[in-house]
């Protein structure tokens, strides 16, 4: 198998595999944030938090959770830059589509 050219990124990934990663800590964060998320609608009603602020809060926590899953569980943190960029590239389309649909 010809893998001699530019083996460095793969080698970095392999070395990173040897380190025990913070999988359990990430799991704890995901669980804790989900617990908080579930309380937001009732807290919003009790403390009269505006719906816009609730949406911003919930989407921010969701984005933080998704980023942690992508970085640690999907190992993007340890991958070469080009692979990190690959799933980020469609985000421009995602934002554009959501803006167009919500304003159409």
């Amino acid at each position, binding site marked *: 198998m010809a893998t001699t050219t530019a083996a460095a990124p793969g080698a970095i990934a392999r070395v990173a595999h040897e380190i*025990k990663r913070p999988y359990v800590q990430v799991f704890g964060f995901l669980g804790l944030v989900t617990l908080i998320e579930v309380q937001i*609608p009732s807290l919003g009603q009790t403390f009269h938090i505006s719906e816009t602020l609730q949406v911003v809060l919930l989407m921010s926590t969701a984005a933080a959770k998704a980023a942690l*899953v992508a970085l640690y569980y999907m*190992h993007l943190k340890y991958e070469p830059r*080009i*692979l990190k960029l690959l*799933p980020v590239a469609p985000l421009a389309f995602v934002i554009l589509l*959501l803006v167009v649909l919500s304003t159409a």
Partner: protein
Amino acid sequence: MEEHASHAASAGDAGHAEHHGSIWPFVLAVAGGLGFSGLATHEIPLILAGIAILVVGVGGWLWQDSRGVSFTVKGNYEERPFAGISRRKLGMWIFLVSEIFFFTGLIGAGLTLRLRVPSCPSVGQACWPEPASPDFPLNIPLTAINTFVLITSSLTMVEALHAAQKGNRAQMKAFLFATFLLGATFVSIQVYEYNKLFFGENLTPWVNSVRPELGTFGTAFYAQTGFHGAHVTGGILALLFLNVKAWRGKYGKDDHEAIELVGLYWHFVDVVWIFLFPIMYLIGR
């Protein structure tokens, strides 16, 4: 078959694609084309034909794999900008990018529907129920538990890969089996919830005579959570495949890419749910 296997191996070693011989990806593509055409046109025979060809395609692929035939092109890319990256991993990531587009379109369509109706209650017209209101049809505590189940399955999946990388096969098999069980639990709870919603809350994907005002919400809810559930079901089948092969002695320190690739898909499905759960269950109109 042996010839095919060796042909595939030599094509992989050469590092460039000759033809790889397997007909099953093409059969699956035909199944998808027919099935989705049927869904779009409401033609039941087309949908059934799509499902039947899907079963044949998956069955044929698994049968071929069970006989040791593989057309996989292994190894790393040599050319920039992907030099040094596994071909299969790059293929999975490109597939996941296409899935981002798919779910963005689906969630965007849900957003469009949401913005075109008022909040419930709204007499005589379609409306969007508020999560904190007593009339909200969805079961938030049950689905929060289900969310924990899916998050936990992501942990067990990544631990299965880690165990394989360390060469601890017993731990790897245990974590793979736990992931499979947790995935099956998620889908089972979703089926239970659908049953309660459909028959108990009269929440249907179409306008019904009992709660006609929830027709728009029902369409958005079942379309988004249903497609996600279908993806989880696909992941469970992939996990079943991994489990069977692991118990037959496959995978370990030097052979764990399949676990990594299925893991990437499984975590992606988790990411989709991380967004879908607040969007459908916690955010109102």
